[in-house]
């Protein structure tokens, strides 16, 4: 149990480090407002966590700080200029309705960040999907102006993008504050994968599904462009790392997790191609929660069956050993009797 807790803490620390790096990049592109938004989300989440834990009759411990990573994930999916109140309500929803009502971190069903993002997108679509251009620094208390649609939106509608590969890698295009820095996201993915902080199966499945679909049904003029743009747009990489591959949500076995990630990616891609649905991967990941739960139930059954088999095998071994011992004793007795006869 202690080692499990330690592992959880290290996972949270690693994820926080990668998220803070993304936050730094957001600061570079959008100024102090992006960082302040992150701070607002984290503070509201911590406050909500403390209050809701009190209602549940529990104390807030260091392990409950995992809510901060969910808050940062959410803040990085939003435009830096989004209304703080909206972000706060989103965080409240994520912590209370999507997490603590179901028992908190011990009984996770949904990714709080994904559910909160979905709630925000259904309630304040225009505010959540309108961005400032990169390098436009809006003051902390300033009202944003000159808002534009994201590059993903334009790509979904036209299948074209006017950005160089370097700009794409660096995240120099309109979009969510932290979900666009592709180079950093690739590095973050590698670190988290090597440190086993995210589900490798789900991540590989998600990327494989996207690449497969981008090749099969190209969304751009040619296949290579289709693969490149599809991975870069609609938060595919960001969501694949922090939402789809979330160890708390994805199935434990890599084999099952791979198919979970694959199906999410395929469905999300189809929604992007047929419906031009922006950031479809986030909504599909919430929609696939029952699939993940079903696979987890299956895993439990398999584990139980294996445990049962092992127990039976052990019992069989024990009886074999007992038989061997009995045989040896019988032989000893026989040899003793023979010796007596000889005498």
């Amino acid at each position, binding site marked *: 149990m202690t080692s499990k807790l330690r592992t959880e803490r290290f996972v949270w620390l690693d994820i926080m480090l990668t998220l803070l790096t993304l936050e730094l990049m957001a600061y570079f592109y959008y100024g102090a407002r992006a960082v302040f938004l992150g701070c607002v989300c984290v503070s509201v989440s911590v406050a909500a966590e403390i209050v809701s834990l009190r*209602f*549940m*009759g529990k104390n807030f411990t260091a392990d409950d700080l995992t809510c901060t990573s969910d808050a940062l994930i959410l803040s990085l999916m939003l435009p830096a200029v989004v209304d703080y109140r909206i972000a706060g309500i989103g965080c409240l929803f994520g912590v209370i*309705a*999507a997490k*603590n*009502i*179901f*028992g*908190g971190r*011990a*009984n996770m*069903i*949904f990714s709080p960040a994904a*559910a909160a993002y*979905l*709630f925000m*997108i*259904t309630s304040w679509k225009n505010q959540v999907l309108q961005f400032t251009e990169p390098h436009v620094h809006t003051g902390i208390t300033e009202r944003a102006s000159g808002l534009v649609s994201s590059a993903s939106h334009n790509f979904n509608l036209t299948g074209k993008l006017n950005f160089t590969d370097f700009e794409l890698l660096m995240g120099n295009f309109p979009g969510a504050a932290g979900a666009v820095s592709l180079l950093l996201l690739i590095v973050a993915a590698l670190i988290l994968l090597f440190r086993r902080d995210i589900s490798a199966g789900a991540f590989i499945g998600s990327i494989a599904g996207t690449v497969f679909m981008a090749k099969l049904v190209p969304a751009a003029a040619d296949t290579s462009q289709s693969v490149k743009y599809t991975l870069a747009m609609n938060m595919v990489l960001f969501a694949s790392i922090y939402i789809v591959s979330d160890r708390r949500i994805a199935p434990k076995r890599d084999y099952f997790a791979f198919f979970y990630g694959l*199906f999410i990616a*395929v*469905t999300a891609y*189809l*929604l992007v191609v*047929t419906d031009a*649905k922006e950031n479809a991967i986030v*909504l*599909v990941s*919430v*929609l696939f*929660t*029952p*699939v993940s*739960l*079903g696979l987890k*139930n299956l895993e439990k059954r398999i584990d139980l069956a294996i445990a049962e088999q092992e127990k039976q095998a052990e019992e069989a071994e024990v009886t074999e050993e007992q038989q061997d011992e009995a045989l040896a004793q019988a032989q000893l007795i026989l040899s003793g009797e023979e010796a007596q006869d000889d005498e």
Partner: protein
Amino acid sequence: MFLITDLIALLAANLILTQALGTSTLFIAAGSRKHLLGTALVITIFTTVGSGLAYIVHHLLPEQYADFTLLCYTLIIGVIYVLLLAACYYIGGERFEKYRRYIHISAYNCAVMGTLFTITEKSHMYINYGTLISWVEFGLRAGAGFVIAAFILTAAYRKLNSAKVPSSFRGFPAMLVYLGIISMAIYALK
């Protein structure tokens, strides 16, 4: 690929997750996984056969008696209810006692009645709901939607009733919030 597209369409048209029709029945049936699937299957029979019969009533009933549509639909469900019970009695034999509860739960509820009224409403708005087949198909889809909703709830059943869930939210309240979040994802899908 087409299967996924079809599944998305089926989810988007799901009467429980988009119109909350039959939620109470789903929760009553949610007492156990076995009941959930049993009820879902019987409801599918009710919605499919009911839609077919409702089509006939809808076309035979003069417009000035439109207020009696509910009465006619109630009679239709009543007929199916009795026929299903009789069939269950003769075919099920000793298992009649076990199975009849699914029929009792499934007969008069918002899932079945709601399907009949939704298709009636749609037939006033869209031309493609003008044939018997389209009505029966709609009934079948509504039943399939209930089955999907049942599966969605079954998958999370253990977690929603776990001792880890706060006692005031354990069971039904957690189920409502869970269905709400799934419903939200479906709404975003549209």
